[in-house]
């Protein structure tokens, strides 16, 4: 049943364009990526697992010289397509139509990854970054011990209109890249409910100076009325601001990024959360890249803190990324969590071995 409904949605999305004009060779591009993980953790009650974490199919259809349709479908956790399985899932990650006015202005309409921070546009594209998963600040956070679910401090997806483009600053090569979106936020399942009815706004600006090859600085924001509330207050307006700096040159990669989120807790007291990380990687012999990521999180950053004993915590990840080819990577990562998992349990450590590929 599940397979049938997803196929139907997929067919409905594709067919109007397929019938609109014949798809000639060269008009359709198909690519994608996948990730298979082996995880072992000392968290209570968990066993080691091997997961087909995701297989994603991306297809792109040229509709005219300046417009195209782009979509991405994810098979998560290797779902059983008979429809009897109680695990895994198939979801539509992106489906948008783009119209290019010029390099300075493009419009995208549909479901998109919110252009937020260094990683959200490639949220799951693990072969395009060093680590197994993107940094902890992009994860779902269980802010409060009384909450029965966890949420991101921004919307991973948005469905609506995005205006974006790249502006050249003079003739020296400096650039500004921008993106502004409005639509309905979250567009994913939270607390067993698909949320996409509340208006959301997001924006991102990146500056690449010509005097510093490989360097960029970026700022992002996301705001919406969150139905379930990151801190427990339902239907509150929540905002998150992000700042990031990246420099990759020679064999080095540096990244520093942080977000400051404002929301209300379940007693409707204003609250802020500050989460950040620093990443350093150094590539040896072009193939082997050891890296370290140090993440810090404070779920209760407000001076007017009235909540109880939620303490800041850190996560340190040591990893190795080995490129077997430009499209196939083997990764090994050890995560040391000084935090108490789900805020109040004991500390946890985990090891992940991962194979990721792009095609």
């Amino acid at each position, binding site marked *: 049943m599940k397979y049938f409904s997803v196929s139907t949605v997929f067919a409905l999305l594709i067919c109007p364009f397929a019938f609109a004009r014949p798809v000639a060779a060269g008009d359709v591009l198909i690519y*994608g990526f996948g990730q298979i993980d082996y995880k072992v953790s000392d968290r209570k009650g968990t066993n080691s697992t091997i997961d087909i974490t995701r297989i994603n199919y991306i297809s792109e259809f040229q509709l005219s010289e300046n417009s195209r349709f782009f979509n991405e479908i994810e098979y998560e956790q290797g779902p059983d397509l008979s429809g009897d399985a109680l695990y895994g899932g198939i979801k539509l990650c992106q489906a948008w139509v*783009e119209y290019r006015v010029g390099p300075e202005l493009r419009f995208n309409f549909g479901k998109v990854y919110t252009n937020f921070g260094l990683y959200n546009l490639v949220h799951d594209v693990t072969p395009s970054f060093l680590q197994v998963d993107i940094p902890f600040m992009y994860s779902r956070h269980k802010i409060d011990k009384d909450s029965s679910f966890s949420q991101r401090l921004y919307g991973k997806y948005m469905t609506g209109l995005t205006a974006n483009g790249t502006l050249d600053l003079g003739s020296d090569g400096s650039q500004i890249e921008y993106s502004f979106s409005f639509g309905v936020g979250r567009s994913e399942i939270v607390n067993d409910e698909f949320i996409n009815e509340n208006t959301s706004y997001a924006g991102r600006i990146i500056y690449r100076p010509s005097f510093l090859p490989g360097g960029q600085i970026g700022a992002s924001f996301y705001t919406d009325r969150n139905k379930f509330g990151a801190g427990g207050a339902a239907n509150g307006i929540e905002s998150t601001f992000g700042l990031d700096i990246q420099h990759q040159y020679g064999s080095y990669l540096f990244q520093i990024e942080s977000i400051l989120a404002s929301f209300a807790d379940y007693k409707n007291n204003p609250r802020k959360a500050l989460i950040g990380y620093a990443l350093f990687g150094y590539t040896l012999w072009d193939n082997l890249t050891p890296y370290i990521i140090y993440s810090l999180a404070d779920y209760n950053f407000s001076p007017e803190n009235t909540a109880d004993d939620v303490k800041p915590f850190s996560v340190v990840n040591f990893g190795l990324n080995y490129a077997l080819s430009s499209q196939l990577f083997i990764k090994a990562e050890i995560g040391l969590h000084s935090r108490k998992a789900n805020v109040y349990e004991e500390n946890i450590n985990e090891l992940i071995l991962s194979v990721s590929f792009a095609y």
Partner: protein
Amino acid sequence: MHIKSTYGNIVRAYILLAVLLLSFNRANAQNEQKFYCVVNKKNSVKSLNKVQLRNILLANTTTWRNNKKIQIVDFSVGKKARKKFSSEFLKLTPNRVSMIRLKKTLAGKALAPKIFHNQEDLLDYISKNEHAIGVVSSNTDLPEEIKIIYLEKK
């Protein structure tokens, strides 16, 4: 107390990176003349500066001024010519360049690069595709349909 501590650590991390970047000694790309940046003769672009070329080859710039998508063509990662150009001009390892392009492609920002194992096929592709751009060794004999993009000094 813990607020100041977390905030302080994050601010210190930003300051450390800023100091590293400011003290960063940019090496000059002295060997770029060993390479020719080439496009199809129908392409109206005549010259680029080094930063603009870098932005194109790393998919920060994804369309030509006429709004057509840029098609990067390159050698496979193991090829000497690619290694040399990546390290001497782009100042990145070839696999790092691939990862950067992969990120842009799978995010829907740029066309996937066309990868070739030999120079003849690469040049043949550019000679037939108006929006393609590639880099070849400066001692290459170029077909008539291909022109060299002049690299400005600044």
